[in-house]
């Protein structure tokens, strides 16, 4: 079996939302899309970015879970919370460094991207990567990604003093070995601008 990995390249996203639609087709969370698609600054830019679960080696969401409801499979995939255990506290939602878990208020349970476990556990590609037309989400071999991309895949992140290793790789410029996260504030955030009740961009963003 050829080992394939997940690679995310935010800069390639064109905001088509194919991933959002395809995600809801996954059997493990049928009808509910788990992927996030962010518009970075809708007033000034068309930039968008997808966010899937990065499947941390030592998931912080699982560490802060009071019900011990978040488990990782032997192949390194962090699953949605266990239904019998999850008590809906949202600690995982608030602690995930990548902002991934979603609290489903109607069923009082946290759900998240599980890398389409019904598919990847039988050597199929995740839904989002299957439909992504721009290669922002790619599920392929390490050799193939290195052959076809300018950047290099990295799976080490630093949030403050916290270093996180993930199963999913992000594409970064060559010679970058780790993604150090600082807080990047761009000029025109919702809070910085005067409120405008007819601001369609802001309405869409919220």
């Amino acid at each position, binding site marked *: 079996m050829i080992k394939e990995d997940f690679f995310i*390249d*935010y*800069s390639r*996203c064109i905001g088509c939302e194919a991933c959002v639609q395809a995600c809801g087709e996954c*059997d*493990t969370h*049928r009808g509910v899309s788990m992927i*996030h698609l*962010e518009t*970075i600054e809708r007033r000034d830019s068309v*930039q968008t*970015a997808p*966010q899937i679960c990065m499947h941390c*080696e*030592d998931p*912080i969401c699982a*560490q*802060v879970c*009071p*019900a*011990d409801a978040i488990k990782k499979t032997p192949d390194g995939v962090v*699953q949605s919370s266990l239904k*019998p*255990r999850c*008590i*809906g*506290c949202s*600690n995982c*939602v*608030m*602690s*995930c*460094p*990548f*902002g991934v878990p979603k609290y489903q208020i109607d*069923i*009082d*349970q946290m759900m998240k991207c*599980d890398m389409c476990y*019904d598919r990847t556990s039988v050597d199929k590609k995740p839904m989002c990567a299957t439909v992504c037309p721009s290669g922002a989400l790619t599920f392929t071999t390490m050799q193939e990604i290195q052959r076809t991309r300018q*950047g290099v895949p990295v799976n080490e992140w630093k*949030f*403050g*003093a*916290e*270093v*996180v*290793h993930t199963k999913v790789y*992000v*594409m970064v*410029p060559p010679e*970058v070995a780790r*993604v150090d*996260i600082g*807080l*990047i504030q*761009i000029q025109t*955030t*919702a*809070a910085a601008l005067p409120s405008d009740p007819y601001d369609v961009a802001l309405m869409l963003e919220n």
Partner: protein
Amino acid sequence: MNRGNRMNNIDKREFARARGSDTARATTWGLLATVALIGGIFIGSRGLRDFDPALVSYAGATLFAAFGLAYRFSMWLRRPPTRLYWYRGWQIFTTPGNLGKNVAHLFQIFMSNFVFQRFIERRSHMRWTAHWFLAWGCLLAGAITFPLSFGWIHFETAKSSQEIYRAFLFGIPVGHFPVHSVIAELAFNALDIAAVMVLIGVFTALWRRGRDHGAMAVQQFADDLMPLILLFAICVTGLFLTASTHLMHGLHYAFLSQLHAITVIVTLVYLPFGKFFHIFQRPAQLGVDFYKRAGKEGEQALCIRCGSEYASRMQMDDLKQVQAALHIHYQLENGSHYQDVCPKCRRKNLALTQDSMWKALQVKGEGS
């Protein structure tokens, strides 16, 4: 620092001591629960006068289960997030002035979450059907068998008439009924009714697990199928006893009763360690409900990036405490804390960080 490095930096002997003290504490709670139950059996059965020796194996397995449950519950409460929620839940619930309102709300969510299990119904009707029958079938069976095997309840034929059956609770007569009556039929067959309820749940659950592709992808034999197999075994062997009595003139009754006892004992031993532990863990959901209500009514946390409200200030402050206890270091270099960034801004920030790295490379290229 990742977890491995962190562990290198922590005094390992201190960690081992903490772990050891957790185990000692949990063992103490386990022993206390066992002793308390032995005391309860002794007192409740009036010095074992009402204790039925034929049921001693059930009582013994229950004592083991009591030890295991108290042990595991104590270990579970030692986890920093669990411990904090446990204290906060009680603190909020018992706040003077709010106690009456909280008791009323507790009754409301108890009915919704426990009695009717509405949150499971919203997940799927089939899941709800399976769970509701399993839960109430097991609770009905437990409500009968535990007090019976402890000698807390027992039945006797009235001295005045063979046609009258008398019920005793802790040795105190609590009622009587004719042997040939609807009440008698219900009382004598309550465990059969419970078994049928559980079997409806087991078959519905197996049907769902055999057809739902999502469930099939993530289910595990030990966690998801084993409990159903155990419940099935208990119900079927229990119903065999009724069949043996009423349909086969007691054929193989002694063997069947031993077989039934074995299935129950194995399940009781499994109780603290497998999926059934959620029965004891799940009430934490009620505490979280109070926590969330208090959080909504209190101060809200504002994201340091976008300025919008995204969670309760209480939860964010508590999470920082939990993270400190878990050696998760989210303090940023500029003195701010990553916990104060809302999840939406975290996601945006990741894409912008990648951008900035490519831009830095571009600037470097232009400069050289």
